[in-house]
């Protein structure tokens, strides 16, 4: 990992929620074309770190260096800000992903609609194209949102527990699509709790505990689990600092 290309780097980053410091001295880089899993117990600052990376939370100290253009960054938070009562169909949602190329004014051309339909086919939601967002299941909605990031040609994708409340088939589809995006060069950071999903999806892991972060290999996270010492794997992974 050390010499790999990384368009996203954190340099001695300190982040706070209100007056409470949540994370400090976070330094490291996220490899291009890799899926990095962000793990840690509840309250260890996973969502805070994502907010910091997306620029929604100003660092107290240190900095986030990101050379991915702003319009190619996508974030799917755990608590969606999406207004599901708004009258919009799946296809229209996917098409809003053209914002980087089309902005507020440029009309969509046939080629873009074709691209939108291809994306929906890839996610298995073609038959839902005209269905209002409010009538979708959790899994269908998640696929539509990933469709928007594909339309956006996102190069940096941050997902906060994308597989929570999602059916097994959707998990399979999304994992495949995320792996494809990574192999096309996107940097993907995903908050995960499920170790099996982590084993299948992630290339590397960042473990958060006690306000610190540590970059570790997927294998070293999974190893303690396999050797039947699950309770202490986090503390081992971050080198003796106990999780809170």
């Amino acid at each position: 990992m050390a010499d790999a290309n990384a368009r996203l780097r954190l340099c001695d980053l300190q982040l706070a929620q209100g007056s409470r410091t949540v994370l400090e001295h976070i330094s490291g880089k996220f490899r291009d074309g890799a899926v990095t899993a962000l793990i840690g117990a509840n309250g260890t600052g996973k969502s805070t770190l994502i907010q910091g990376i997306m620029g929604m939370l100003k660092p107290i100290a240190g900095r986030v260096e990101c050379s991915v253009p702003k319009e190619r960054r996508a974030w799917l938070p755990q608590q969606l800000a999406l207004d599901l009562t708004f009258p919009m169909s799946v296809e229209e949602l996917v098409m809003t992903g053209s914002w980087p190329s089309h902005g507020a004014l440029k009309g969509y051309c046939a080629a873009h609609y074709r691209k939108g339909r291809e994306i929906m086919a890839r996610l298995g939601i073609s038959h839902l194209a005209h269905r209002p967002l409010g009538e979708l299941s959790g899994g269908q909605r998640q696929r539509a949102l990933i469709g928007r990031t594909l339309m956006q040609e996102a190069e940096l994708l941050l997902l906060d527990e994308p597989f929570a409340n999602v059916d097994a088939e959707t998990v399979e589809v999304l994992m495949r699509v995320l792996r494809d995006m990574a192999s096309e060069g996107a940097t993907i950071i995903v908050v995960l709790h499920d170790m099996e999903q982590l084993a299948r999806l992630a290339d590397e892991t960042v473990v958060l505990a006690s306000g610190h972060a540590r970059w570790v290999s997927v294998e070293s996270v999974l190893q303690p689990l396999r050797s039947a010492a699950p309770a202490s794997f986090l503390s081992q992974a971050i080198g003796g600092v106990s999780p809170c």
Partner: protein
Amino acid sequence: MLTLLHEWLIAPFDYGFMKRALIASFALSLAAPPMGVFLVLRGMSLIGDAMAHAILPGVALGFLLAGFSLPMMSLGGILSGLLVAVLAGSVSQMSGQREDAAMASFFLISLAAGVMIISLGGSSVDLTHVLFGSILAVNTTSLLLIAAISSLIVITLAVIFRALVVECLDPLFLRGQGVRGSLVHGIFLGLVVLNLTAGFQTLGTLMAVGLMMLPATAARFWSKRLEGLIAVAIGIALVASTGGLLLSYHFNIPSGPAIILLAGVGYVFSALFGSQHSLRRRLRRRAAPLGAPEPH
């Protein structure tokens, strides 16, 4: 029969004042309902009402300084409307109080201040005119102003349309794209104020909001799509305007309340018989069988 129809529906518009009233209300019917649709979708249905009160002190001051000068009264209305919107926004930001509470406080103060200013400088006739408007007294200058403001609203709305839709749906995504949601929101609120200012001459400050909200709330019973909502709302507003003017002419009743009451009839009818979520639909609700084609 044809003569009767002509006499009832067409002949009134031979008069210049009826022609001007019709054109003015058509201009308002094209501009106001789309704003109403967005207000309803954003859960801000009552903000229109609050803003209608907020323009009153400015209109009253304009009236006090320049008499029945529409440009002056409109300018005053726009300024006080924007001022109240900004004040309410900043008070809620500084105090952490919800914006609707600040807005409610300011619009009550505005209403009282407006009525007080008019009472100090004019008669009760003037007060009635400002509060309830008189569409049948629209002159060419007013008509030009109303048409210009309505055109500006429609054009601006077209320009910010996609941004407004994305901001309503997912403000976070828009922010991620480097667009400030508050800017889009601010422009939209500015358009609401402009719209109410255009409407007060014809419908009065208290009624202008009716042509914005009633067609929009009624449209919710007919369409599930944004374009559909806007089209239905404009249709209802056009019918209510024409019908209201005709009723006003034939039965010698005030035009503003006639137009808004007709829009109200449209709302009640839609709530009872509309194709979406109406009472009729609830009573006859049946689920589509599995495998039925997707409704488009």
